[in-house]
């Protein structure tokens, strides 16, 4: 990262990468794999606060098959 963007401090990049790992790694689930139930949960959370002009279903915002299990 520092090689491509020298302004980015190495220690900061290391800390941020560790923070990303904490958000990304879910026990028992392949890295990067989307859980459709969590997508639905995300849609419901958004709907609880915002009014959507048109309904949104899981299939509207998630395309499966791009992460190998």
């Amino acid at each position: 990262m520092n090689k491509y963007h020298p302004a980015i401090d190495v220690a900061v990049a290391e800390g941020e990468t560790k923070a990303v790992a904490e958000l990304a790694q879910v026990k028992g689930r392949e890295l990067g794999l989307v859980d459709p139930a969590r997508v639905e949960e995300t849609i419901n959370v958004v709907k609880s606060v915002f009014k959507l002009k048109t309904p949104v279903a899981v299939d509207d915002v998630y395309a499966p098959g791009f992460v190998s299990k």
Partner: protein
Amino acid sequence: MHRLDKHTIVCRAVALVALLLISERARALDNVTLITDFGYNGRHAYFFVAIEKGYYSDADLDVKVVRGQGSVDAIRQVGANNAIVGFADAGSLVLARGNDHIPVKLVSIVYAKPPQAVFCREDSGIRQPKDLEGASIANPAGGATVDMFPVYAKAAGFDASKVKWIVAGSDSLPGLLAGNRVPCVGQFTVGEPLLRMQAAPAKLVRFAFADADVSFYGNGLIATDSTIATKADIVRRFVAATIRGMKDAFARPDERAGS
């Protein structure tokens, strides 16, 4: 005769190597432009690990990373085909689909937990979520933190409408906080190391959305319906190489941050 055979073998070997080199050079890489959520930050290191370690080129991809100005911007840029893939917030994606009919979908998740947070200077007196009522929070326009803030406010039990948002560029946020020009900034938890470093010796209070037991997806990789339909193989190769970069970066964050 024996010498002639040896000569022939050497010539053929040289020709074969030359052919392989020519073939390698002629191998067409698929160009992929990736737009980030906010600028270039340490949180994006795994994309650069994938470039540096040759994971994208192994997947026959030539990847260019361009900086975004918020998830909404990244979604719009991908929707307008200015980038083939983007890194953006799933909640903002739902809003973009439902309200603006932007035909973009999530293909892989990176932040499987909510990354949004607000960081305030401890000397601002803001100690608990309800203290954010009446506070000013600097954040880039169209950022996922602003979009999802009402969800956090509802879960944490305060009035989101009583917060004053100040539009500021993503790069300026640490400086604004460090210079005490604003009491709070919106920032993903992945940006915490930079904020704490730049705000020192001022201490910061963190209000992470995940701490209020809100559960939704954060950022992931996105592409348009059209790209998914017509360039699925490119997207699949990009996702696989990116995950390879993630695994590598997560295993050795100290080394990979400098690569």
